[in-house]
């Protein structure tokens, strides 16, 4: 029977507090930097770092380094201050809240890249010691692998740590030795502290995240891909080759199990158990309640079991074991590096991205003029197959 209060209750339901907005509460323009900044400003706070990551790398590929800096700085403040109790993280661990409710800082390979890109920006600004600090922090982000063989095993991070140290007159031998030992794809070039032009090279599409398992509770990675296998750089009459030294898919997939994976597995067990228990209670309750006459003890027990079963099913339904698949989705697959000594002045640089057969991909070849103005300050060129 419809009561007079019903319309009021429906009204209350619909009017709810409007603090939580739909995910997309901003106008998309199609420009990734404008949209990224809008997402940072108006999107959920928990996704702020994710958008800062994505937007910063687009800005760098456009050569808008001043745009990228504050985005990465803000992201790194969150990343560096994530210690201790965190309400969102606690909620993400609870049975009834999804992992994706936590503040996004990314998996270790994503955290590494935030420091890596910031290091490039510091080097561009001539702050080699701060660049080195970022390479070191990046390597620390990769240090907590389950299998220690894969702990802090980025070739370029150690190599660039060594190069920066050598440029500042320090002893780079340990870092360079580690870099050589870690080299799996190819060995980085000889460290030349007197080089003054540096090419930070990246290409391909990085790994993607997806969730699998009965309740999507297991985080997995789709391998990245790249038709580009290396880069050839022609400067004046010299030719440099930048082979891949680090592979982000390798880094994403060798981290091992997360603590959060165990928590999600427990959530999945709870969801499954409460569902099964609910089914059993509802079926048993229905049988008991249906076989006896009204107001019998079995009838009351049956109704009780039915109610318990429904409650158990509700608990099961609201348990959210799904893994967080938010990802820094515009990362490259491979990282590389090259360096050269050039005299002050303007130089023409041609960058060719080579396929597996060593043939240049015509649509990616570009020639730019670089100005080596001060011998005291390095010239840093950021090369990406997604440069715009």
């Amino acid at each position: 029977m419809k009561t007079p209060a019903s319309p009021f209750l429906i009204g209350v339901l619909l009017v709810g507090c409007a603090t939580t907005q739909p995910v997309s509460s901003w106008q998309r323009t199609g420009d990734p930097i404008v949209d990224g900044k809008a997402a940072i400003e108006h999107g959920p706070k928990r996704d702020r770092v994710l958008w800062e990551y994505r937007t910063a790398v687009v800005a760098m590929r456009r050569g808008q380094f001043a745009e990228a800096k504050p985005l990465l700085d803000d992201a790194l403040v969150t990343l560096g201050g994530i210690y201790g109790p965190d309400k969102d993280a606690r909620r993400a661990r609870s049975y009834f809240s999804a992992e994706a409710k936590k503040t996004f800082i990314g998996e270790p390979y994503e955290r590494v890249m935030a420091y890596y890109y910031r290091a490039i920006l510091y080097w561009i600004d001539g702050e080699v010691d701060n660049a080195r600090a970022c390479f070191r922090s990046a390597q620390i982000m990769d240090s907590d692998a389950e299998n220690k063989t894969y702990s802090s095993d980025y070739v370029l991070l150690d190599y660039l740590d060594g190069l920066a140290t050598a440029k500042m007159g320090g002893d780079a031998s340990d870092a360079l030795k580690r870099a050589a030992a870690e080299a799996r794809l190819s060995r980085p070039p000889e460290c030349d502290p007197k080089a003054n032009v540096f090419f930070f090279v990246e290409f391909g599409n990085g790994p993607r995240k997806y969730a699998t398992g009965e309740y999507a509770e297991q985080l997995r990675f789709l391998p990245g891909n790249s038709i580009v296998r290396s880069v050839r750089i022609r400067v004046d009459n010299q030719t440099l080759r930048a082979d891949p030294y680090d592979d982000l898919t390798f880094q994403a997939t060798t981290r091992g199990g997360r603590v959060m994976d165990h928590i999600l597995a427990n959530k999945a067990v709870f969801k499954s158990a409460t569902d099964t228990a609910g089914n059993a209670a509802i079926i048993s309750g229905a049988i008991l309640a249906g076989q006896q006459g009204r107001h019998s003890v079995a009838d009351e027990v049956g109704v009780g079991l039915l109610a318990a079963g429904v409650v158990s099913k509700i608990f099961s339904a609201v348990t959210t074991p799904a893994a967080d698949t938010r990802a820094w989705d515009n990362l490259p697959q491979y990282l590389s590096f090259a360096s050269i000594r050039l005299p002050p002045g303007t130089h023409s640089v041609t960058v060719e991205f080579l396929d597996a057969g060593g043939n240049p991909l015509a649509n990616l070849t570009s020639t730019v003029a670089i100005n080596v103005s001060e011998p005291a300050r390095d010239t840093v060129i950021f090369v990406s197959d997604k440069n715009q």
Partner: protein
Amino acid sequence: MAILTGCASSGVKNPSGIGVTEMRADEKGFVAGTGVESQDLVAVTDKMSRSILDTPQIKSAHNPPVVVLDPVVNETRFPINKDMFLTRIRVLLNSKSFGKVQFLARDRMAALEKERDLKRSGQVTSSSDPNVVEFKGADFFLTGKLQSLTTRNSRGTSDYVLYSFQLVDARTSAIVWEDFAEIKKQGLEDAAYR
């Protein structure tokens, strides 16, 4: 029904925001990491400036020694504006030492040379002979180094930072004063991030 109609802001952390909290620079804030923070800067530079003033070369000097700042070397894993350390030491010494030590504005040399050249060319007035070299040379260099050790495993992250500073005699290269401070911090992020 009352449960179901609850305010949706229960899903939002601090929906009303948090007011600005003014804190002392030497106070540990509620936003903290294991890196170099303002309370470390204050503690380290306070200690160093007190220590420098106790140095016989400064304390017993007949004429205020002239000091030039040489940039601090950052060997830690933390990108920082390292000049802040020497800036704060310089300001503390200038404000508390009552002229016992004098610093040169070497970071302003370009502007100073330009002004001198304007005076020499007669484009601006000069209260003394602009052709006489009056830029002072240094008696001492004040410099420092920041180094760190980091451990990170399933039980958390530990960062130890060693802050060392030196006063180097510009004539002899002798280190006439040296002191250090060390700070170790540890933290463990929520399991949701591990």
